[in-house]
Protein backbone atom coordinates (compact mmCIF):
# COMPACT_ATOMS: atom_id res chain seq x y z
CA UNK A 1 0.00 0.00 0.00
CA UNK A 2 1.63 3.14 -1.16
CA UNK A 3 0.07 6.37 -0.13
CA UNK A 4 1.35 9.71 -1.33
CA UNK A 5 1.15 12.68 0.96
CA UNK A 6 2.36 16.12 -0.10
CA UNK A 7 2.50 18.90 2.47
CA UNK A 8 2.99 22.52 1.42
CA UNK A 9 5.59 21.61 -1.20
CA UNK A 10 7.62 24.52 -2.53
CA UNK A 11 10.49 24.27 -4.94
CA UNK A 12 12.69 26.57 -6.97
CA UNK A 13 15.22 25.40 -9.58
CA UNK A 14 18.81 26.53 -9.03
CA UNK A 15 19.63 29.91 -10.60
CA UNK A 16 15.97 30.83 -11.07
CA UNK A 17 13.80 33.39 -9.32
CA UNK A 18 10.33 31.97 -9.66
CA UNK A 19 8.92 29.10 -7.63
CA UNK A 20 8.28 26.11 -9.93
CA UNK A 21 6.09 24.56 -7.24
CA UNK A 22 4.28 26.85 -4.85
CA UNK A 23 2.64 25.43 -1.76
CA UNK A 24 1.18 22.17 -3.06
CA UNK A 25 -0.74 20.03 -0.58
CA UNK A 26 -2.53 16.83 -1.56
CA UNK A 27 -3.04 13.15 -0.86
CA UNK A 28 -3.22 10.28 -3.32
CA UNK A 29 -4.42 6.79 -2.42
CA UNK A 30 -3.18 3.44 -3.67
CA UNK A 31 -4.76 2.46 -7.00
CA UNK A 32 -6.01 5.89 -8.02
CA UNK A 33 -5.64 7.12 -11.58
CA UNK A 34 -4.65 10.77 -11.39
CA UNK A 35 -4.56 13.02 -14.44
CA UNK A 36 -2.32 16.08 -14.17
CA UNK A 37 -3.16 19.04 -16.41
CA UNK A 38 -2.06 22.65 -16.79
CA UNK A 39 -0.48 24.89 -19.37
CA UNK A 40 3.19 24.80 -20.39
CA UNK A 41 5.47 25.74 -17.54
CA UNK A 42 2.79 25.27 -14.88
CA UNK A 43 4.97 22.82 -12.97
CA UNK A 44 3.59 19.44 -13.99
CA UNK A 45 6.95 17.85 -14.75
CA UNK A 46 8.51 19.37 -11.69
CA UNK A 47 5.73 17.93 -9.55
CA UNK A 48 6.33 14.47 -11.07
CA UNK A 49 10.02 14.69 -10.32
CA UNK A 50 9.31 15.78 -6.77
CA UNK A 51 7.34 12.57 -6.24
CA UNK A 52 10.28 10.44 -7.37
CA UNK A 53 12.86 12.37 -5.38
CA UNK A 54 14.68 13.57 -8.53
CA UNK A 55 13.69 16.96 -7.14
CA UNK A 56 15.63 17.77 -4.98
CA UNK A 57 18.19 14.91 -5.06
CA UNK A 58 19.14 15.17 -8.72
CA UNK A 59 18.20 18.79 -9.38
CA UNK A 60 19.11 20.50 -6.08
CA UNK A 61 17.63 24.01 -5.72
CA UNK A 62 15.54 25.48 -2.90
CA UNK A 63 13.09 23.01 -1.41
CA UNK A 64 10.44 23.40 1.26
CA UNK A 65 7.60 21.29 2.61
CA UNK A 66 7.35 17.52 2.67
CA UNK A 67 6.61 14.65 0.31
CA UNK A 68 5.87 11.25 1.80
CA UNK A 69 5.58 7.95 -0.02
CA UNK A 70 4.07 5.81 2.71
CA UNK A 71 6.18 6.74 5.70
CA UNK A 72 9.31 7.55 3.70
CA UNK A 73 10.17 11.20 3.34
CA UNK A 74 11.36 11.58 -0.23
CA UNK A 75 14.08 14.13 0.31
CA UNK A 76 15.83 11.98 2.90
CA UNK A 77 16.42 8.98 0.64
CA UNK A 78 18.45 8.33 -2.50
CA UNK A 79 16.68 8.11 -5.84
CA UNK A 80 17.60 4.45 -6.18
CA UNK A 81 16.04 3.62 -2.82
CA UNK A 82 12.77 5.05 -4.02
CA UNK A 83 12.59 4.05 -7.66
CA UNK A 84 11.58 0.49 -6.93
CA UNK A 85 8.47 1.94 -5.28
CA UNK A 86 7.85 4.89 -7.59
CA UNK A 87 8.59 4.46 -11.30
CA UNK A 88 8.67 7.30 -13.80
CA UNK A 89 8.37 7.32 -17.58
CA UNK A 90 9.28 10.36 -19.66
CA UNK A 91 8.21 12.04 -22.89
CA UNK A 92 10.92 10.92 -25.24
CA UNK A 93 11.06 7.14 -25.65
CA UNK A 94 14.38 7.36 -27.53
CA UNK A 95 16.16 8.92 -24.55
CA UNK A 96 14.98 6.22 -22.20
CA UNK A 97 16.76 3.47 -24.08
CA UNK A 98 19.97 2.67 -22.23
CA UNK A 99 21.90 2.06 -25.46
CA UNK A 100 23.95 -0.66 -23.81
CA UNK A 101 21.62 -3.58 -24.47
CA UNK A 102 21.18 -5.47 -27.71
CA UNK A 103 17.61 -6.74 -27.36
CA UNK A 104 14.32 -5.56 -25.89
CA UNK A 105 14.47 -8.42 -23.42
CA UNK A 106 17.90 -7.40 -22.13
CA UNK A 107 16.88 -3.75 -22.10
CA UNK A 108 14.05 -4.50 -19.67
CA UNK A 109 16.51 -6.46 -17.53
CA UNK A 110 18.73 -3.40 -17.04
CA UNK A 111 17.01 -2.09 -13.91
CA UNK A 112 16.63 -5.56 -12.43
CA UNK A 113 20.32 -6.31 -12.87
CA UNK A 114 21.20 -3.07 -11.13
CA UNK A 115 19.03 -3.96 -8.17
CA UNK A 116 20.53 -7.41 -7.93
CA UNK A 117 17.33 -9.33 -8.63
CA UNK A 118 17.98 -13.03 -8.83
CA UNK A 119 18.00 -14.52 -12.36
CA UNK A 120 14.88 -16.71 -12.32
CA UNK A 121 12.87 -13.94 -10.68
CA UNK A 122 14.26 -11.54 -13.26
CA UNK A 123 13.08 -13.71 -16.18
CA UNK A 124 9.64 -14.10 -14.62
CA UNK A 125 9.20 -10.37 -14.18
CA UNK A 126 10.42 -9.55 -17.68
CA UNK A 127 8.03 -12.06 -19.24
CA UNK A 128 5.16 -10.62 -17.23
CA UNK A 129 5.83 -7.03 -18.20
CA UNK A 130 6.37 -7.98 -21.85
CA UNK A 131 2.95 -9.61 -21.81
CA UNK A 132 1.29 -6.77 -19.92
CA UNK A 133 2.51 -4.21 -22.46
CA UNK A 134 1.86 -6.51 -25.38
CA UNK A 135 5.41 -6.39 -26.72
CA UNK A 136 6.44 -10.02 -26.19
CA UNK A 137 6.70 -10.45 -29.96
CA UNK A 138 9.49 -7.89 -30.13
CA UNK A 139 11.59 -9.29 -27.31
CA UNK A 140 14.53 -10.27 -29.51
CA UNK A 141 14.52 -7.05 -31.54
CA UNK A 142 17.10 -4.34 -31.10
CA UNK A 143 15.68 -1.58 -28.85
CA UNK A 144 16.36 1.18 -31.37
CA UNK A 145 14.56 -0.74 -34.13
CA UNK A 146 11.13 -0.27 -32.54
CA UNK A 147 8.51 2.28 -33.54
CA UNK A 148 7.87 5.18 -31.16
CA UNK A 149 4.83 3.55 -29.59
CA UNK A 150 6.61 0.23 -29.19
CA UNK A 151 9.68 1.93 -27.76
CA UNK A 152 7.59 3.84 -25.24
CA UNK A 153 5.85 0.62 -24.21
CA UNK A 154 9.27 -0.94 -23.76
CA UNK A 155 10.22 1.99 -21.52
CA UNK A 156 7.07 1.41 -19.48
CA UNK A 157 7.77 -2.33 -19.33
CA UNK A 158 11.29 -1.60 -18.07
CA UNK A 159 9.78 0.36 -15.20
CA UNK A 160 6.94 -2.08 -14.52
CA UNK A 161 9.42 -4.96 -14.27
CA UNK A 162 10.80 -3.27 -11.17
CA UNK A 163 7.30 -3.75 -9.70
CA UNK A 164 6.63 -0.22 -8.48
CA UNK A 165 3.44 0.55 -6.58
CA UNK A 166 3.21 3.93 -8.24
CA UNK A 167 3.94 4.80 -11.85
CA UNK A 168 4.29 8.35 -13.05
CA UNK A 169 4.02 9.13 -16.75
CA UNK A 170 5.09 12.58 -17.90
CA UNK A 171 3.46 13.19 -21.29
CA UNK A 172 4.27 9.68 -22.49
CA UNK A 173 2.40 10.09 -25.77
CA UNK A 174 3.34 13.61 -26.81
CA UNK A 175 5.97 12.41 -29.29
CA UNK A 176 3.90 9.58 -30.70
CA UNK A 177 1.52 9.33 -33.63
CA UNK A 178 -2.18 8.59 -32.89
CA UNK A 179 -1.65 4.86 -33.29
CA UNK A 180 1.33 4.85 -30.91
CA UNK A 181 -0.53 7.02 -28.38
CA UNK A 182 -3.49 4.69 -28.38
CA UNK A 183 -1.20 1.71 -27.72
CA UNK A 184 0.30 3.51 -24.75
CA UNK A 185 -3.07 4.60 -23.33
CA UNK A 186 -4.39 1.07 -23.45
CA UNK A 187 -1.28 -0.23 -21.74
CA UNK A 188 -1.57 2.38 -18.99
CA UNK A 189 -5.20 1.47 -18.45
CA UNK A 190 -4.16 -2.14 -17.88
CA UNK A 191 -1.61 -1.05 -15.27
CA UNK A 192 -4.32 0.87 -13.46
CA UNK A 193 -6.61 -2.15 -13.51
CA UNK A 194 -3.84 -4.14 -11.84
CA UNK A 195 -4.03 -1.78 -8.88
CA UNK A 196 -0.94 0.31 -9.60
CA UNK A 197 -1.33 3.98 -8.78
CA UNK A 198 -1.05 5.93 -12.04
CA UNK A 199 -0.15 9.60 -12.19
CA UNK A 200 -0.24 10.82 -15.75
CA UNK A 201 0.58 14.22 -17.20
CA UNK A 202 -1.18 14.58 -20.50
CA UNK A 203 -2.38 17.26 -22.89
CA UNK A 204 -4.88 14.97 -24.62
CA UNK A 205 -7.71 16.14 -22.43
CA UNK A 206 -10.37 13.70 -23.69
CA UNK A 207 -8.19 10.81 -22.54
CA UNK A 208 -7.64 12.36 -19.12
CA UNK A 209 -11.39 12.86 -18.80
CA UNK A 210 -12.10 9.26 -19.70
CA UNK A 211 -9.51 7.53 -17.52
CA UNK A 212 -8.87 9.67 -14.44
CA UNK A 213 -10.41 9.11 -11.04
CA UNK A 214 -9.31 12.59 -10.11
CA UNK A 215 -7.76 15.46 -12.04
CA UNK A 216 -5.07 17.75 -10.72
CA UNK A 217 -5.04 21.23 -12.25
CA UNK A 218 -1.80 23.17 -11.85
CA UNK A 219 -1.10 26.76 -12.76
CA UNK A 220 2.01 28.77 -12.02
CA UNK A 221 3.25 26.11 -9.63
CA UNK A 222 0.05 26.21 -7.58
CA UNK A 223 -2.55 23.51 -7.16
CA UNK A 224 -5.69 25.16 -8.54
CA UNK A 225 -8.01 22.20 -8.21
CA UNK A 226 -7.86 18.50 -7.42
CA UNK A 227 -11.18 16.75 -7.87
CA UNK A 228 -13.21 14.36 -10.01
CA UNK A 229 -12.93 15.18 -13.74
CA UNK A 230 -16.55 16.40 -13.92
CA UNK A 231 -15.91 19.02 -11.25
CA UNK A 232 -12.59 20.21 -12.63
CA UNK A 233 -13.76 20.42 -16.23
CA UNK A 234 -16.96 22.22 -15.27
CA UNK A 235 -15.01 25.15 -13.82
CA UNK A 236 -15.88 28.38 -15.55
CA UNK A 237 -12.31 29.70 -15.24
CA UNK A 238 -10.68 26.66 -16.88
CA UNK A 239 -9.54 28.50 -19.99
CA UNK A 240 -7.96 31.22 -17.88
CA UNK A 241 -5.70 28.48 -16.56
CA UNK A 242 -4.78 27.52 -20.09
CA UNK A 243 -6.84 24.34 -20.34
CA UNK A 244 -9.50 23.69 -22.97
CA UNK A 245 -12.20 21.40 -21.55
CA UNK A 246 -13.09 18.14 -23.35
CA UNK A 247 -15.43 18.41 -26.34
CA UNK A 248 -18.29 16.71 -24.49
CA UNK A 249 -18.01 19.17 -21.64
CA UNK A 250 -18.23 22.04 -24.08
CA UNK A 251 -21.25 20.47 -25.77
CA UNK A 252 -22.76 19.92 -22.35
CA UNK A 253 -22.27 23.57 -21.50
CA UNK A 254 -23.77 24.71 -24.79
CA UNK A 255 -26.82 22.50 -24.33
CA UNK A 256 -26.92 23.07 -20.58
CA UNK A 257 -26.69 19.36 -19.84
CA UNK A 258 -25.97 18.88 -16.15
CA UNK A 259 -25.47 15.89 -13.93
CA UNK A 260 -27.96 16.74 -11.23
CA UNK A 261 -26.25 15.12 -8.18
CA UNK A 262 -22.94 16.88 -8.63
CA UNK A 263 -24.17 19.84 -10.66
CA UNK A 264 -21.44 19.32 -13.25
CA UNK A 265 -21.23 19.00 -17.02
CA UNK A 266 -20.49 15.65 -18.70
CA UNK A 267 -16.87 14.85 -19.57
CA UNK A 268 -17.17 11.75 -21.76
CA UNK A 269 -19.29 10.72 -24.71
CA UNK A 270 -21.05 8.15 -22.56
CA UNK A 271 -22.06 10.67 -19.94
CA UNK A 272 -23.25 13.15 -22.54
CA UNK A 273 -25.34 10.46 -24.22
CA UNK A 274 -26.92 9.42 -20.95
CA UNK A 275 -27.86 12.97 -20.09
CA UNK A 276 -29.33 13.55 -23.54
CA UNK A 277 -31.36 10.34 -23.37
CA UNK A 278 -32.57 11.36 -19.93
CA UNK A 279 -33.66 14.74 -21.16
CA UNK A 280 -35.63 13.30 -24.03
CA UNK A 281 -37.70 11.06 -21.77
Amino acid sequence: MAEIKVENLKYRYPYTEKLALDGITCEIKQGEFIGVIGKNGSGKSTFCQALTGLVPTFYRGAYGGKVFIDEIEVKNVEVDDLCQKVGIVFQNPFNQVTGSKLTVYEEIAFGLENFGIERSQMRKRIDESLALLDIAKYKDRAPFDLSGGQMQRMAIASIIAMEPEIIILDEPTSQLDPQGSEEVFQAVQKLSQKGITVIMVEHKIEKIAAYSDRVMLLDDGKLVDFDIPQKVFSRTDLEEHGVVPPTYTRIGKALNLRVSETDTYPVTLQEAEQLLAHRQE
Partner: protein
Amino acid sequence: MKSMSLYEEKHSFLNKLSPITKMIYVVAAILIPAFAGEKMLAVGFMIFSMLLLMHSKVIRRTFPILGVSGFVVLTVLIIQGLFRAGNETVVLDMGPVAFYKEGLLFALGIAINVFNIILCFCVLVLSTKPSDMVEELVRKGFSPRIGYVFTSLFQLIPQMTDRMSTITDAQKSRGMETEGSLMIRMKAFLPLISPVIMSSFIDTKERAIALEVRGFNAKNKKTFLNESTKIPVDNVIIIILVVGIVCSIGWRIMTWLR
Protein backbone atom coordinates in the same frame (compact mmCIF):
# COMPACT_ATOMS: atom_id res chain seq x y z
CA MET B 1 20.45 -2.64 -36.45
CA LYS B 2 23.21 -0.11 -36.80
CA SER B 3 26.26 -0.73 -34.73
CA MET B 4 29.86 0.30 -34.96
CA SER B 5 31.28 -3.01 -33.91
CA LEU B 6 33.46 -5.16 -36.16
CA TYR B 7 32.02 -8.29 -34.64
CA GLU B 8 30.40 -10.80 -36.95
CA GLU B 9 27.94 -13.43 -35.79
CA LYS B 10 29.62 -16.74 -36.64
CA HIS B 11 29.48 -20.07 -34.93
CA SER B 12 33.16 -20.78 -34.73
CA PHE B 13 35.40 -22.08 -32.01
CA LEU B 14 36.63 -18.55 -31.30
CA ASN B 15 33.09 -17.22 -30.90
CA LYS B 16 32.33 -19.85 -28.30
CA LEU B 17 35.32 -19.00 -26.12
CA SER B 18 34.83 -16.65 -23.19
CA PRO B 19 35.86 -13.04 -23.85
CA ILE B 20 38.19 -13.32 -20.86
CA THR B 21 40.13 -16.15 -22.48
CA LYS B 22 40.58 -14.09 -25.63
CA MET B 23 41.64 -11.06 -23.63
CA ILE B 24 44.27 -13.14 -21.85
CA TYR B 25 45.41 -14.39 -25.26
CA VAL B 26 45.98 -10.77 -26.33
CA VAL B 27 48.02 -10.11 -23.20
CA ALA B 28 50.03 -13.30 -23.69
CA ALA B 29 50.72 -12.65 -27.38
CA ILE B 30 52.14 -9.24 -26.51
CA LEU B 31 53.94 -9.99 -23.23
CA ILE B 32 55.51 -13.38 -23.88
CA PRO B 33 57.65 -12.29 -26.88
CA ALA B 34 58.49 -9.02 -25.10
CA PHE B 35 59.69 -10.69 -21.90
CA ALA B 36 61.42 -13.54 -23.63
CA GLY B 37 63.13 -11.04 -25.95
CA GLU B 38 62.73 -13.41 -28.85
CA LYS B 39 61.33 -12.13 -32.15
CA MET B 40 60.57 -15.62 -33.39
CA LEU B 41 57.99 -16.01 -30.61
CA ALA B 42 56.17 -12.95 -31.94
CA VAL B 43 56.26 -14.45 -35.41
CA GLY B 44 54.86 -17.65 -33.94
CA PHE B 45 51.95 -15.82 -32.29
CA MET B 46 51.37 -13.93 -35.53
CA ILE B 47 51.01 -17.11 -37.52
CA PHE B 48 48.88 -18.69 -34.81
CA SER B 49 46.52 -15.67 -34.75
CA MET B 50 46.21 -15.90 -38.53
CA LEU B 51 45.33 -19.58 -38.33
CA LEU B 52 42.69 -18.85 -35.68
CA LEU B 53 41.20 -16.06 -37.80
CA MET B 54 41.14 -18.29 -40.86
CA HIS B 55 39.45 -21.04 -38.91
CA SER B 56 36.73 -18.55 -37.83
CA LYS B 57 36.38 -17.36 -41.42
CA VAL B 58 37.01 -13.73 -40.53
CA ILE B 59 40.53 -13.38 -41.91
CA ARG B 60 39.27 -11.26 -44.82
CA ARG B 61 38.12 -8.60 -42.39
CA THR B 62 41.70 -8.11 -41.24
CA PHE B 63 42.92 -7.19 -44.76
CA PRO B 64 41.87 -3.52 -44.68
CA ILE B 65 43.41 -3.07 -41.22
CA LEU B 66 46.61 -4.84 -42.25
CA GLY B 67 46.68 -2.83 -45.47
CA VAL B 68 46.65 0.52 -43.71
CA SER B 69 49.18 -0.49 -41.08
CA GLY B 70 51.26 -2.21 -43.78
CA PHE B 71 51.60 1.10 -45.54
CA VAL B 72 52.86 2.78 -42.38
CA VAL B 73 55.27 -0.08 -41.69
CA LEU B 74 56.60 0.14 -45.24
CA THR B 75 57.42 3.80 -44.73
CA VAL B 76 59.27 2.94 -41.53
CA LEU B 77 61.15 0.22 -43.39
CA ILE B 78 62.28 2.61 -46.12
CA ILE B 79 63.28 5.42 -43.78
CA GLN B 80 65.14 3.18 -41.34
CA GLY B 81 66.73 1.16 -44.15
CA LEU B 82 68.08 4.30 -45.76
CA PHE B 83 68.89 6.63 -42.92
CA ARG B 84 69.09 4.88 -39.55
CA ALA B 85 72.06 6.04 -37.49
CA GLY B 86 74.53 3.16 -37.23
CA ASN B 87 73.77 1.82 -40.70
CA GLU B 88 76.98 0.09 -41.95
CA THR B 89 76.34 -3.01 -44.02
CA VAL B 90 74.95 -2.28 -47.45
CA VAL B 91 72.47 -4.85 -48.74
CA LEU B 92 71.07 -3.05 -51.75
CA ASP B 93 72.99 -0.37 -53.58
CA MET B 94 70.82 1.87 -55.71
CA GLY B 95 73.32 4.47 -56.89
CA PRO B 96 72.78 7.66 -54.91
CA VAL B 97 71.09 5.80 -52.02
CA ALA B 98 71.58 2.43 -50.42
CA PHE B 99 69.62 0.18 -48.07
CA TYR B 100 71.48 -0.96 -44.98
CA LYS B 101 71.08 -4.23 -43.07
CA GLU B 102 70.97 -2.68 -39.57
CA GLY B 103 68.14 -0.30 -40.35
CA LEU B 104 66.16 -2.94 -42.21
CA LEU B 105 66.45 -5.42 -39.36
CA PHE B 106 65.39 -2.79 -36.86
CA ALA B 107 62.34 -1.91 -38.97
CA LEU B 108 61.55 -5.58 -39.44
CA GLY B 109 61.46 -5.98 -35.66
CA ILE B 110 58.96 -3.13 -35.43
CA ALA B 111 56.90 -4.63 -38.25
CA ILE B 112 56.69 -7.99 -36.51
CA ASN B 113 55.55 -6.38 -33.26
CA VAL B 114 52.96 -4.21 -34.99
CA PHE B 115 51.44 -7.05 -36.99
CA ASN B 116 51.47 -9.37 -34.01
CA ILE B 117 49.58 -6.84 -31.88
CA ILE B 118 47.08 -6.09 -34.63
CA LEU B 119 46.39 -9.73 -35.35
CA CYS B 120 45.93 -10.78 -31.74
CA PHE B 121 43.53 -7.88 -31.19
CA CYS B 122 41.67 -8.99 -34.30
CA VAL B 123 41.27 -12.43 -32.77
CA LEU B 124 39.53 -10.78 -29.82
CA VAL B 125 37.55 -8.06 -31.57
CA LEU B 126 36.32 -9.97 -34.63
CA SER B 127 34.95 -12.83 -32.59
CA THR B 128 33.54 -11.07 -29.53
CA LYS B 129 30.48 -8.89 -29.09
CA PRO B 130 31.63 -5.66 -27.40
CA SER B 131 28.77 -5.93 -24.92
CA ASP B 132 29.80 -9.49 -23.98
CA MET B 133 33.35 -8.36 -23.47
CA VAL B 134 32.35 -5.50 -21.18
CA GLU B 135 29.80 -7.58 -19.29
CA GLU B 136 32.46 -10.20 -18.62
CA LEU B 137 34.79 -7.51 -17.28
CA VAL B 138 32.05 -6.10 -15.06
CA ARG B 139 31.46 -9.58 -13.66
CA LYS B 140 35.15 -9.64 -12.76
CA GLY B 141 34.82 -6.39 -10.83
CA PHE B 142 35.33 -3.75 -13.52
CA SER B 143 33.30 -0.57 -12.90
CA PRO B 144 29.78 -0.89 -14.38
CA ARG B 145 29.71 2.83 -15.12
CA ILE B 146 32.80 2.76 -17.27
CA GLY B 147 31.52 -0.45 -18.81
CA TYR B 148 28.29 1.31 -19.67
CA VAL B 149 30.16 4.10 -21.42
CA PHE B 150 31.91 1.60 -23.67
CA THR B 151 28.88 -0.52 -24.57
CA SER B 152 26.52 2.39 -25.09
CA LEU B 153 28.97 4.16 -27.39
CA PHE B 154 28.69 1.36 -29.92
CA GLN B 155 24.97 2.02 -30.27
CA LEU B 156 24.55 5.65 -29.37
CA ILE B 157 27.10 7.07 -31.81
CA PRO B 158 25.38 5.60 -34.89
CA GLN B 159 22.06 6.83 -33.47
CA MET B 160 23.47 10.34 -33.02
CA THR B 161 24.84 10.47 -36.56
CA ASP B 162 21.39 9.43 -37.76
CA ARG B 163 19.96 12.35 -35.85
CA MET B 164 22.49 14.66 -37.38
CA SER B 165 21.43 13.64 -40.88
CA THR B 166 17.78 14.17 -39.91
CA ILE B 167 18.61 17.69 -38.84
CA THR B 168 20.62 18.29 -42.03
CA ASP B 169 17.62 17.13 -44.06
CA ALA B 170 15.36 19.43 -42.11
CA GLN B 171 17.68 22.37 -42.72
CA LYS B 172 17.94 21.49 -46.40
CA SER B 173 14.19 21.40 -46.76
CA ARG B 174 14.16 24.94 -45.41
CA GLY B 175 16.43 25.94 -48.26
CA MET B 176 19.84 25.72 -46.67
CA GLU B 177 22.83 24.92 -48.87
CA THR B 178 24.69 21.85 -47.67
CA GLU B 179 26.33 20.97 -50.94
CA GLY B 180 28.69 22.97 -53.06
CA SER B 181 31.98 24.71 -52.40
CA LEU B 182 33.81 24.45 -49.09
CA MET B 183 32.82 28.01 -48.16
CA ILE B 184 29.13 27.33 -48.75
CA ARG B 185 29.27 24.17 -46.71
CA MET B 186 31.12 25.86 -43.89
CA LYS B 187 28.37 28.46 -43.73
CA ALA B 188 25.75 25.71 -43.77
CA PHE B 189 27.53 23.85 -41.02
CA LEU B 190 27.36 26.63 -38.45
CA PRO B 191 23.58 26.75 -37.95
CA LEU B 192 23.68 22.97 -37.89
CA ILE B 193 25.99 22.50 -34.96
CA SER B 194 23.95 24.35 -32.40
CA PRO B 195 20.78 22.21 -32.72
CA VAL B 196 22.92 19.09 -32.85
CA ILE B 197 24.93 20.00 -29.78
CA MET B 198 21.89 21.29 -27.94
CA SER B 199 19.79 18.25 -28.72
CA SER B 200 22.51 15.80 -27.80
CA PHE B 201 23.14 17.76 -24.61
CA ILE B 202 19.47 17.50 -23.66
CA ASP B 203 19.36 13.86 -24.76
CA THR B 204 22.30 13.05 -22.56
CA LYS B 205 20.76 14.71 -19.55
CA GLU B 206 17.43 12.98 -20.10
CA ARG B 207 19.16 9.65 -20.55
CA ALA B 208 21.14 10.21 -17.35
CA ILE B 209 17.88 10.69 -15.43
CA ALA B 210 16.28 7.68 -17.11
CA LEU B 211 19.27 5.55 -16.09
CA GLU B 212 19.18 6.95 -12.58
CA VAL B 213 15.58 5.85 -12.03
CA ARG B 214 16.50 2.38 -13.18
CA GLY B 215 19.02 1.98 -10.42
CA PHE B 216 22.17 2.77 -12.40
CA ASN B 217 23.76 4.10 -9.22
CA ALA B 218 22.28 1.54 -6.86
CA LYS B 219 24.84 0.42 -4.32
CA ASN B 220 23.82 -3.20 -3.97
CA LYS B 221 25.55 -6.05 -5.79
CA LYS B 222 24.56 -6.36 -9.44
CA THR B 223 23.17 -9.53 -10.96
CA PHE B 224 23.31 -10.56 -14.62
CA LEU B 225 20.54 -11.73 -16.92
CA ASN B 226 22.90 -13.87 -18.95
CA GLU B 227 25.03 -16.55 -17.42
CA SER B 228 28.77 -16.37 -17.83
CA THR B 229 29.66 -18.32 -20.96
CA LYS B 230 32.84 -20.07 -19.85
CA ILE B 231 33.29 -23.57 -21.28
CA PRO B 232 35.76 -26.16 -19.87
CA VAL B 233 38.28 -25.60 -22.65
CA ASP B 234 38.44 -21.93 -21.60
CA ASN B 235 40.06 -22.89 -18.33
CA VAL B 236 42.62 -25.11 -20.04
CA ILE B 237 43.59 -22.33 -22.43
CA ILE B 238 43.79 -19.76 -19.66
CA ILE B 239 46.09 -21.99 -17.60
CA ILE B 240 48.40 -22.58 -20.56
CA LEU B 241 48.55 -18.87 -21.35
CA VAL B 242 49.17 -17.81 -17.77
CA VAL B 243 51.90 -20.44 -17.36
CA GLY B 244 53.45 -19.09 -20.59
CA ILE B 245 53.41 -15.54 -19.28
CA VAL B 246 54.88 -16.54 -15.92
CA CYS B 247 57.65 -18.59 -17.59
CA SER B 248 58.60 -15.69 -19.86
CA ILE B 249 58.81 -13.38 -16.84
CA GLY B 250 60.90 -15.97 -15.01
CA TRP B 251 63.18 -16.24 -18.02
CA ARG B 252 63.64 -12.47 -18.07
CA ILE B 253 64.52 -12.35 -14.37
CA MET B 254 67.00 -15.21 -14.79
CA THR B 255 68.78 -13.45 -17.62
CA TRP B 256 69.06 -10.33 -15.45
CA LEU B 257 70.50 -12.24 -12.53
CA ARG B 258 73.06 -13.97 -14.64
